[in-house]
């Protein structure tokens, strides 16, 4: 669950990245967040993950009020999110399995929990045979699957992906989106930021379009750049 009420974000250098954003994402939804470069997509994501704080307005994430959240509560809020980046951000010197284990240990999971959860998640992303490979021994698409597995491994209620397919070819990109769709069908809320118009239009999902820091359109079925397709 994400709720933005009249959110403004002005960076220290005076850039107004968001200018009064109202958005509501309910549990179980699949949402594309689209918009041109510099429109404020990543800013919106960083507000959700509490990497930055809003200048004005209210932000609620999975029951946490980010306007009043204490530093001690921030980690607890982040445990409800699984975050995926364009550049994967895997630990190169750890194997696939160890990368997932690392994330689980970070929130205090026991070895027993690791042994139970990791094979299940790897099988879900189709990498059950490659647990002992290092990221460098995998293709870009496979590396992003590892990142998705890592985001899932702590069983978050929401997955947030900022341009997860930016480094992948169209076929790999489609496969990643279909994987995210499947994860959504299993009950996890999914928010995907993307540039790729064609990719968005392959799905019939809710599309939130942002431009110049404002929500331009919000609807199901392929709104993009203000024009209905």
């Amino acid at each position: 669950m994400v709720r933005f009420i009249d959110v403004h974000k002005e960076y220290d250098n005076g850039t107004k990245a968001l200018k009064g954003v109202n958005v509501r994402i309910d549990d179980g939804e699949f949402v594309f967040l689209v918009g041109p470069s510099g429109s404020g997509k990543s800013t919106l994501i960083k507000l959700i993950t509490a990497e930055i704080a809003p200048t004005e307005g209210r932000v609620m994430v999975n029951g946490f009020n980010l306007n009043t959240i204490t530093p001690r509560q921030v980690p607890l809020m982040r445990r409800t999110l699984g975050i995926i980046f364009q550049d994967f951000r895997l630990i190169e010197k750890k194997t696939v399995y160890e990368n997932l284990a690392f994330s689980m240990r970070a929130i205090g999971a026991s070895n027993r929990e690791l042994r139970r959860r990791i094979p299940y998640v790897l099988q879900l992303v189709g990498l059950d045979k490659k647990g002992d490979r290092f990221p460098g021994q995998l293709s870009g698409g496979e590396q992003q699957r590892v990142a998705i597995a890592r985001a899932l491994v702590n069983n978050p209620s929401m997955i947030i992906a900022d341009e997860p397919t930016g480094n992948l070819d169209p076929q790999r990109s489609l496969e990643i989106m279909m994987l995210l769709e499947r994860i959504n069908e299993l009950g996890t809320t999914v928010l995907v930021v993307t540039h790729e118009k064609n990719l968005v239009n392959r799905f019939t999902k809710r599309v939130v379009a942002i431009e110049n820091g404002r929500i331009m359109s919000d609807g199901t079925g392929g709104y993009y750049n203000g024009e209905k397709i």
Partner: protein
Amino acid sequence: MARRFDAGYYISEGVHSIFTHGFMSFAAVCMIVACLIIMGSFSLLAVNLDNMLGDLENENEMVVYIDDSLTQDQARALQPNLAQVDNVSQLTFVTKEAAVTDFKAKRQEIADVLNDLPSDAFQDRYRVHVVDIERMAQTKAALEQVEGVSEVQAAIEIADGFVMVRNIATGVAMVLIGILLVVSLFIIANTIKLATFYRREEIAIMKMCGATDGFIEWPFVVEGMILGLTGALIAFFVQWGLYQLVAKLAVQGNGLSLVTMISYSSMATTILAVFCGVGAVIGVGGSLLAIRKFLQV
């Protein structure tokens, strides 16, 4: 998910981190060893000096001569008045007869000449020890004010000399130790900063997953502590070797054994405890100094 204090994890991460940037760890340990040894050497010097000064101070007594006009009984009666004087710790009454006997005993070679020395040549006196030799001059003046006292003899210059030597040694040691502590702290802080730099991606991932600050900090605190304690342990043994060497040279250097040194083994537990304590404080302090800033994300 369960929140547990996983000491095994923190220790293995801390140890691992030490080896991934071995050179800096080595430099940090060396610095701690150097710091502790210089600190230890000064402290041991001060302790030994203090010990020797203590002996000498004990011998440094004042003599209060009692006026001839008083009878021996009257002289004895002065004891409470003298004892009342501030800073007086010990009073011993010595009759003129005892003084003569003592005088003769110390000069056996010329005993014949002294044989018919009249006891009248001596005065009844008190031997006085003081609590604090720094205030010897005031005590002397106060004793002279007591009725029935004819004269007070005291080696004020020698007492002042002792006090000055001790004060200078303590002052120099304090300043040096202070400087070295700060330097070591910064070296450790830099080592840990380097460690966090090596692991910045992992830290970012841990934060993203919802790791608590404590979980992220602990391995670095453990790392700093291990560096500090390793340095302390090495310093303890090196200090031991150095001390034995100096002790041997000191004994060889003076056959009269004017210099008496306290044995290292009798102080070993204290030294080890102090070194470990200081090492751990420097190590943990340096870690906290290094990670305090970057955790504010």
